């Protein structure tokens, strides 16, 4: 893709002599960085820190427990993307719920939940709507279709999270020193660049919207280092082949029709105002929380699990006392080790571990 050799880009980054730490807030970036060994190729003065970019990982324990409780309800089929299945709740996981008779179906597209509901008219299908702005419009379109086709036995447990409010909350904590952000390519394919202008305006920090190939990330790092060198704080688009500055107006329109912002509970960050989504009034019939008002008691995270600190970039996965010893991909303690795009899983698979 690049007409320039990666080592030439690396050498240009080195030559600028800038000391800086940049955060990525996208699980796919995390995996691509780990898999390519990019951290080791960069000069020591340029640090990469993973942030709250994995949707499953940032889901609060109480919400995971809610999903598991749903799977234990008689006559309920829980439909979910695959990476939620093994995430440990307080007592069990969806996988264990399925082993003890609960019904859990893995789907590839939210649209598959419509077929599942049609195929099981005597059962209730609940779709676990987990994901950032890339996923929310797809769910919104599915909700609209369910309403238009009058499908009575389908509802949605809406756990969507919004990335810009989480970044703002993380910066307000001032726990770590950051010099800019590698911005998530496909979140920005939907949102465009405007929702990230607060980085420039409120924090004088640059951001570069980036694709997922190691070459993309390397070029984005070059652009970030150059901005830092020139003391600029612009929101630039490296991933121009897929991202327009205005985003995807069709997807934004559907998302806006179906959802409204509401506070959300993030693992590691707590409750952040307007950082989640709720179904708007015309779609309340499809809200799983209204259809199944379950009381979840005693939710707690595994003691000493460092997922919260890892998601805030305060510690690296390797700095968690459980990493690679108590917590491994085969026997994960926290979601960051379970999800394929979790920081701990990526570090375990591609970096050093005990």
């Amino acid at each position, binding site marked *: 893709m690049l007409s320039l050799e990666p080592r030439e880009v690396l050498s240009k980054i080195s030559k600028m002599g800038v000391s800086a730490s940049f955060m990525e807030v996208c699980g*796919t970036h995390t995996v691509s960085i780990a898999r390519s060994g990019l951290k080791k190729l960069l000069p020591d003065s340029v640090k990469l820190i993973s942030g709250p970019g994995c949707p499953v990982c940032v889901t609060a324990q109480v919400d995971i427990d809610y999903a598991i409780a749903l799977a234990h309800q008689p006559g309920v089929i829980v439909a979910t993307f695959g*990476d939620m299945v093994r995430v440990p709740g307080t007592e069990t996981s969806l996988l264990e719920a399925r082993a003890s008779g609960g019904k859990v179906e893995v789907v590839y597209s939210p649209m598959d939940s419509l077929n599942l509901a049609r195929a099981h008219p005597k059962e209730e299908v609940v779709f676990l709507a987990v994901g950032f702005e890339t996923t929310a419009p797809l769910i919104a379109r599915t909700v609209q279709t369910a309403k238009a086709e009058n499908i009575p036995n389908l509802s949605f447990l809406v756990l969507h999270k919004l990335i810009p409010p989480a970044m703002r909350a993380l910066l307000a904590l001032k726990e770590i020193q950051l010099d800019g952000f590698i911005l998530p390519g496909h979140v920005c394919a939907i949102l465009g660049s405007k929702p990230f202008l607060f980085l420039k305006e409120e924090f004088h920090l640059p951001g570069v919207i980036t694709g997922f190939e190691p070459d993309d990330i390397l070029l984005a790092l070059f652009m970030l280092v150059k901005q830092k060198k020139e003391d600029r704080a612009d929101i630039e688009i490296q991933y*121009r*082949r*897929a991202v327009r500055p205005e985003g995807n107006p*069709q*997807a934004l329109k559907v998302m806006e029709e179906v959802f409204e912002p509401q506070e959300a509970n993030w693992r590691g960050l707590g409750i952040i105002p307007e950082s989640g989504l709720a179904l708007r009034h015309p779609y309340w019939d499809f809200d799983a929380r209204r259809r199944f008002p379950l009381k979840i008691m005693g939710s707690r995270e595994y003691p000493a699990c460092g997922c919260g600190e890892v998601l805030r970039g305060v510690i690296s996965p390797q700095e968690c006392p459980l990493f690679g010893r108590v917590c491994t991909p085969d026997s994960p303690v926290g979601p960051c080790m379970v999800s394929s795009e979790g920081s701990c899983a990526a570090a375990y698979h591609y970096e050093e571990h005990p």
Partner: protein
Amino acid sequence: MCLGIPVKIVEIKDQEALVEVGGLKQTIRTDFVPEAQVGDYVIVHAGFAISVLEEEEARETLELLKDADVIP
């Protein structure tokens, strides 16, 4: 997980398209890319096309860097 690999549209019918991924054919939704045409490459997320790829745009990035006297 975001798949950065573009897929090619082979056929379009209403809000659905047939795409080819590594020789395999798959149906995706085109609700959010009404401008998509047969032959276009799109980015797909969980069964929906979310963006039509623009080669021109990709080149533009490199041109931009050349202008900035970054790439010799």
